C-alpha cells in the first residue's frame, strides 16, 4: 500500500505490507511522521491510499486495481482515537450506544441496553450510564472510548496512541489492562504508538516503521534482542554503538555466526545476523545492561580498560559512562555498586550481546 499526502510530494507510506492474524495484537511503532498513523487511518478508511489493497477478514475494503472502496462507516471496525473523541453533548450511554444504532439489523432497545451495559462493565464503568460524557476523568474517558469501540463486536480494533493522553501512572496500569481485555475478547487489534515501552509490553507482533516503510517486524523479544538495523537498536531501548570493520567471519550456515571485528576500543568477537563480509564497515551495538564491569585491568577476551566519566544514580539502577580511548560507553549497573568518577575499570562485552549491524 502506498499513500501520498495531498498537499506535498512527500509519500507518507511508501510500501507497507502487513498481515494480522485473528486475535493478534499487532503494533506499529515509529517516530512521529513515519507513516504509522496514516497506515492505521487507511485501514479505518479515513484516508484513501494511492495504490494497494486492504482486506478486513475476507472482505476487500480497498483495492486500487479493481477500484474498490468501502466507506469507513461500512467497514465495521472499532477504533479508539488519540483524543478519545468522546462526544461531549451525549451521555455515557449515548456514546456507547452510538455504534449499535447503525448496525444492520438494528438491535432492539432492550438488547441495545444490555450490550451497552456489558461493554461498560467490561471497562469497569458500570453504573455511569447517565453521566454526561464531559464529566468523566481522563482515565474514565479512555475506558469509555474503549467500550464504544468494542460494543458492536467489530472485526478489527484500531488503537491510535490511546494511552498518550494519560498521566504516567495511569498509563502503566492501562497498558496491562488494555492488553488483557483485548486478548480475553480475542479481538484482532492494530495498535499505533511511538512509545517503545507500550509496543514491547503489549504486542504479540510489532513492526518498526521509518519514513513510510516497515524496517523490522517480529515479536517484541526479537526486536529488542536482535535489532536488524542501527535505527531499530537506537529507537528501542538504549544502545552503545561502535564503528567497526569486519576482520573475519566464521560459523557460516549455523544460525549464530561469529564475526571478529576491529573497533576503536580494540578487537571484539561479535554475533552476526546480516551478511557482511571481510573488510566491510559495520556498526556494533551493545545494550548498556549487557556490559559487565570490573575494577582494575582485565585480560579476558572482549574486554577493554577505561576510566569512569560520569555516574548517575537513578534509584533502581546506576547509569554510568566509561571512557575507553575516547569512546563513551554507557553501562547500567545494580544501584548497590559503588563507583566514582575517575575510577579505573575494565568492561567486558559478552560475545552473544554484541550485534553486528550494517552501517
Amino acid at each position, binding site marked *: *500500500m502506498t499513500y501520498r499526502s*495531498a498537499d506535498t510530494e512527500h509519500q507518507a507510506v511508501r510500501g*507497507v*505490507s*502487513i*498481515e*494480522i*492474524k*485473528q486475535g493478534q495484537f499487532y503494533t506499529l511503532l515509529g517516530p512521529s511522521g513515519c507513516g504509522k498513523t496514516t497506515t492505521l487511518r487507511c*485501514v*479505518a*478508511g*479515513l484516508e484513501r491510499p494511492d495504490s*494497494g*489493497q*486492504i*482486506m*478486513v*477478514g*475476507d*472482505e*476487500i*475494503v480497498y483495492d486500487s486495481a*479493481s477500484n*474498490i472502496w*468501502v*466507506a*469507513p*462507516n*461500512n*467497514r*465495521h*471496525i*472499532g*477504533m479508539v*482515537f*488519540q*483524543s478519545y*473523541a468522546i*462526544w*461531549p*453533548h451525549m451521555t455515557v450511554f449515548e456514546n456507547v450506544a*452510538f*455504534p449499535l*444504532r*447503525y*448496525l444492520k439489523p438494528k438491535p432492539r432497545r432492550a438488547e441495545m441496553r444490555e450490550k451497552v451495559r456489558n461493554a461498560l462493565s467490561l471497562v469497569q464503568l458500570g453504573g455511569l450510564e447517565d453521566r454526561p460524557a464531559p464529566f468523566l476523568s481522563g482515565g474514565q474517558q479512555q475506558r469509555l472510548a474503549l467500550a*464504544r469501540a468494542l460494543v*458492536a463486536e467489530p*472485526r*478489527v480494533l*484500531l488503537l491510535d496512541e490511546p494511552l498518550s493522553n494519560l498521566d504516567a501512572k495511569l498509563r502503566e496500569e492501562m497498558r496491562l489492562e488494555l492488553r488483557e481485555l483485548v486478548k480475553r475478547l480475542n479481538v*484482532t487489534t*492494530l495498535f499505533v504508538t511511538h512509545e517503545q515501552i507500550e509496543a514491547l509490553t503489549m504486542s504479540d507482533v510489532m513492526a518498526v516503521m521509518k519514513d513510510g516503510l516497515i524496517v523490522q517486524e517480529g515479536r517484541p523479544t526479537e526486536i529488542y534482542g536482535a535489532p536488524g538495523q542501527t535505527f531499530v537498536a537506537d529507537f528501542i531501548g538504549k544502545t552503545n554503538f561502535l564503528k567497526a570493520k569486519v576482520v573475519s567471519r566464521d560459523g557460516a550456515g549455523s544460525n549464530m555466526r561469529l564475526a571478529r571485528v576491529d573497533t576503536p576500543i580494540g578487537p571484539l568477537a561479535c554475533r552476526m545476523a546480516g551478511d557482511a563480509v571481510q573488510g566491510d564497515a559495520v556498526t556494533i551495538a551493545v545494550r548498556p545492561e549487557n556490559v559487565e564491569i570490573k575494577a582494575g585491568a582485565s585480560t579476558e577476551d572482549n574486554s577493554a580498560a577505561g576510566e569512569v566519566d560520569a555516574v548517575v544514580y537513578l534509584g533502581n539502577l546506576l547509569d554510568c559512562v566509561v571512557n575507553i580511548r575516547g569512546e563513551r560507553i554507557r553501562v547500567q549497573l545494580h544501584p548497590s555498586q559503588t563507583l566514582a568518577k575517575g575510577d579505573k575499570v575494565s568492561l567486558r562485552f559478552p560475545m552473544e550481546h554484541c550485534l553486528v549491524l550494517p552501517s
Partner: protein
Amino acid sequence: MATVTETLVRRPAPAHAPDLLPTVMIGAAVVACVAVASLLAVILWLSFTDGTPGIEPEYTLANFTNMFLDKVTYLVIGNTLGFAATTLCVALAIGLPMAWLIERTDFPGKRVVFTLFTVALLLPGFSVALGWLFLLNPRVGAINHLLMWLFGLGEAPFNVSTVLGMGMVEGLSLTPVIFIMCSVVFRSMDASLEEAARMSGASLIQTMRRVTLPVAWPGILAASIYVFAIGFAAFDVPAILGMSNRIYTFSTYVYHNINPDGGLPEYGAVAALSMFMLSFAVLMTLWYSRVQRQAPRYAIVTGKAYRPVIVRLGRHKPVAVAFVVTYFVLAQLLPVLMLVWASGLPYLQPISAAAFESLSWRNYLELQPDVILLGVGNTSILMVVVPTIAVALALAISWVVLRSKLKGRAAVEFFAFLPHTIPPIVFSVAAWLLALFVLADVLPIYGTIWILVLVYVVQRISYCTRMTNTAMIQVHKELEESATIFGAPTAGVMRRVLLPLLLPAMMYAWIWTALLAYRELTLPVVLTTSGNQTLSMVVWGLVQTSAFGPASAVALIMVGLMIPILILYWTVARRTGIAPAG
C-alpha cells in the same frame, strides 16, 4: 483480520446505500459562490457598456473616462475620505479609551456597558441620524437654538449636514465597533508584558506608552482600517443628513446617479462608479487582512489562563464614569429622545412653549396601516428567511472548506469571504442590475421580496461563514471521524454530532443576521418598489418627502419592536456563551 496482502480469498464488499449529503453540501456551496460571482460579474460587465435593459449593449470605456473627467467625482472622493477620516477619529477617540477602561480598570458595571454597546450597535443608523438632524439642523436643530438663545448668536453655530457633521454622527455610531474590537485586543494581551514593565520601574503612564499601546497597536490598526472602510461605504448617515444639502459621499453619489434629478438612470455610469468603490474597498480589505495576519506576531496570548492587572481608578473613577455616561446620553439617548419629540409635532420646529402645546398622537394615528403592515410583513419575512438560508449555506460552505477534500475548496473560501469586502450599496446596485439586465426574462424577481432575500443572503454570507468556520475549527475532527467509524453516514454524522455541537454558534449567527436584516436600509434602498417595502424603507420614503413627524413615528416603532428581539438575542447569547461580534 486486517490484511494488506494479496494472499487471501477475495470477496468484494457488499453494496451500500450511496451517501448523498456531501453532494448536496457541495452543491449549496457552489450555488452561493455562483451568486456572489454573478453579482460582481454583472457590475464589471455593465461598467464597460452603454447598457440599457432589453437592448443589445455596446462596449465602451466612456463610463470610466466620463467618471474620471467629471470634477464632481473628485469632490465626492474628497468628501468620502474626509467623512471616513472624521468617523474614524471620533470613534477611536471615544472607543479606544472606553475599551481600556472596561478591560483593564476597576470600572463599575462592565456588563451594563457591554449591553448598552450591543444596543448601540443595533440601533438603526438612520433613526439615530434622523435624531441628529433634529438636534443640529441649522434651521430647527434644538442644540443650535439653545446655543443661539444662550449666547445671543445671530446664526446657528452647527450644521450637521456637512462632511464634519456627518462624520461625527457616523463616528459616534461606530464607536461600539472600535470598542468591541479593541477590548478583544486588550483582553487577549499577555498581562505579564505590562507586569514586567512595571517591575522594571516604569510608571502606569510609561507602561501604557511603551508597552501596552505598541503591543496592542496591530489590533488597533486593524480595527481602525475596518472602521474606516465601513465609513467609506456608509450610506445611512450621509443619505439622511447630506443628500438634502447636496453633499455626497460615494454611496449617496451612486444612489443619486440611480435616481438622477431628471431622466433615466445611467446604468453604465452607476456600474463604473460601483467598480471604483469596489476596488477601493478591496484594497482596504487586503490591507486589513495583512495587518490582522501580522497581529499575532506580537506576543498576543490566547487560551492561557491569566488574570490581567486591574488598574485601580481611585479618585478618577467619577471622571471615567462621567465620560462613559456622557457618551451614551449624548450619542444614543438624545437622538432617540429627539425622535420622540419630533414624532409628536405636526411639523419640525424648535423647542418652545408653543411646540409643547402642539404635541399630539396625530403622526401615529395618521400612519397608513396597510403600508406599515406591509413593511412589518416584508421585514418579518426577511428576518426569518434570510438568516435561515444564510446560516444553512454558511454551514455547507464551512463543511466544504474545512471538512471535504474537494479540489476547489480554496475558491469556495475566497468567494465566501468576498462579500465581506463589498460596500452594501455596491451589492444593492449589483442585484438591481442583475435583475434588470440578466434575470428580467428568466426569473422576474425585480420588485419582489425575493430579490431582497437574494442580496441580503449573499451580503451576510461572509459573516455567517466566519461564525460557522470558527465553531467548526473548534470541533475536533476526530469527533466526526469516530462517528463515521462507528457506522454513521455523512447525514448521521451531521445530525448526531456536528449539528448539535455547532448549534450555539449557528443560533448566534442566525439571530445576529436577523437583527441586521431588521435594521438594514442600504440594501433595499435601490431595490424597493411599492410591493416589497421593508419597514426601514417606509421611514426612508417619509424622509424623502420631508414628512419628518411620521418618519420619526415609524422609526420609533422600529426601535420599540426591536426590544423583544433583543431580549431573545441576549437569552441566546447568554445560553451559548458567545461574545458579541460585528
